[in-house]
């Protein structure tokens, strides 16, 4: 199967240099809708959904392949090969920041630089390392996902019906955005929050920009600094934005930080 269908790849923009955006745990490529258009004049903009999210081909999902982040990184490399990406800019949010880190090591030359938005190489505290969560807290998250998928996900569909205030978010949004198969969501959460990719950071062969929010409960400033310190070549920018999704809450700040980095 082509990764174009499998990962619901959409390509836009007028530039020749590719910029590929990867969404994190929770939603889909719509996460980039306030950021990606800003680069359409200068870049060939590539968006995709991870298998299991958005409008990806759910039949391509297998617990075995996607039982670790490496499966997602393999997909990213396949997408890059199919689209013949060279010297691309990779922009990854949350867990996808680390998926991009892994892909950059697997496929040298595919990416020229990485933009990592709210990255965390490990969410669970470990000795002196402060990931922000105890193992018990993550277990509770995984249990609650198993316990209440109706509250978490099935009920999402009616929740996003209609959109009187922002008609530009058309119908396609109501059908896919933040909607996940409960079983897949549970497995993706486990893979994400149990992951430990700290060892990959020093191996990244390209320069990177770390965009860190204030007051981010998912990836704290401390974690952002850790990523910055362990990458061979990186810039750390502390945004004024709060929360975990500056691409939605403060797109302008994200765009200008990216522009000055590029």
């Amino acid at each position, binding site marked *: 199967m082509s990764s174009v269908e499998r990962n619901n790849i959409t390509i836009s923009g007028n530039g020749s240099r590719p910029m590929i955006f990867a969404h994190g745990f929770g939603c889909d490529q719509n996460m980039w809708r306030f950021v990606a258009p800003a680069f359409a004049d200068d870049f060939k903009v590539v968006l995709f959904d991870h298998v299991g999210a958005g409008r990806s081909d759910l039949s391509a999902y297998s617990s075995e392949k996607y039982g670790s982040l490496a499966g997602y990184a393999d997909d990213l490399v396949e997408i890059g090969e199919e689209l013949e990406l060279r010297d691309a800019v990779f922009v990854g949010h949350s867990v996808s920041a680390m998926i991009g880190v892994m892909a950059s090591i697997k496929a040298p030359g595919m990416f020229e630089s990485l933009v990592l938005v709210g990255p965390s190489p490990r969410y669970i505290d470990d000795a002196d390392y402060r990931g922000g969560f105890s193992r018990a807290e993550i277990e*509770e*998250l995984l249990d609650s996902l198993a316990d209440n998928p109706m509250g978490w996900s099935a009920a999402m569909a*009616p*929740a996003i019906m209609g*959109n009187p*205030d922002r008609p530009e978010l058309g119908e396609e949004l109501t059908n896919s955005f933040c909607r996940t198969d409960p079983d897949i969501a549970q497995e993706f959460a486990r893979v994400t929050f149990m992951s430990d990719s700290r060892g990959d950071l020093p191996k990244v062969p390209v320069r990177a920009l770390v965009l860190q929010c204030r007051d981010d409960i*998912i990836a704290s400033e401390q974690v952002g600094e850790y990523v910055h310190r362990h990458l061979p070549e990186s810039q750390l920018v502390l945004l004024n934005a709060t929360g975990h*999704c500056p691409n*939605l809450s403060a797109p302008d700040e994200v765009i200008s930080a990216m522009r000055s980095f590029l």
Partner: protein
Amino acid sequence: MATPPPPEDLEDLYEHAPCGYMSLQPDGRIVKCNATLCAWVGYSHDELHGKRLHDLLSVAGRIFFETHFAPLLRMQGYFDEVALDFIARDSTKIPVLANAMERRDDQGALLFTRITIFKATDRRRYERELLEARTNAQTAQRELQALNATLETRIRRAVEERLQIEESLARERQLAELREQFIAILGHDLRNPLASLDGGIRMLHGENLSPQGERVVKLLQGSTLRMSGLIDNILDFARTQLGGGIALKIEDDVEVQPVLEQVVDELRTATPDATIETEFTIPAPMRCDRIRIGQLASNLLGNALAHGHRTSPVRVRANAADGEFVLSVTNAGEPIPPSTMERLFQPFVRGTSGRNQDGLGLGLYIASEIARGHGGTLEAESTAEETRLTFCMPLTGNPVEPD
């Protein structure tokens, strides 16, 4: 005097509404909330001011809120019916449903986010029961699918077996036709020329022949007799091997002695240099197949003549007494080696020491089949002095039907 009831005004509606209200600054901190919410979570207005929504959620709830609902709120400006668990001051969990809406200024800048909260304890319980029911239904469905799968496999196997049986039946039928053709060819095409040969020899008997001619005719007669016996044996063998079995035509009141005498006469004629002694004591007629008993006797005697020393006589004894008919044929000669003895009644077993090597090795096999067909036995003993084959059958037993 009673105090007058408080006036129904907006201020009071906000504070004591049957739902919780909360407004967040753009940075997510609580700027305003109502008394209903304060009472639910066990914090005062002052304590809640400056807290973030996160602070009222469990860690798991925070993560999920931040990765799913916060983006949703940013994307569409509101969310409806989001299920959350608030954690009260005393650590109890309060399941709620929350609606949220962003309030923006004319330039689109976020002013604050308003959240309305409804208790949903019963609803959550109901959802959980639904979920359980769904899980059970899915389990039952999976079990059903598994059952169907094994059922399909079983049906497929049964059909395959059935097909195999039908195929082997068809093969069986083909084989039976082949057998009938083969037997017909043997019986008809081999016997006819033999019959005309035999007829010709009989005609020569009436002619005036020289002594040399007489001797040659006798030899020819012996050869046709032996050939006829061989054809009979081959036919019978073909029938038994191809599934037909040896056919018996059992009759009551068969006089066996004349049958045996005729066999002995024929073989005497065919082997003039041999001596055959007979001793028959058969007081009453028997129930048997006349022709087959003759064939059995002929095979045993032929075998003895082929392998016995010419210097000693071949003795044929038959007697019927005590409910049993016993026929034995004895000859002197080399003993049958033990290795041959084991397979003596199997087809195509041929002796190695006899002078006559042109038999097919079917005689004793056919004889034993005939014995079996009559519910009797055929046994062999062989010593340095003599070799004896003994056929026993019950006088009143039911003959065995061929397989």
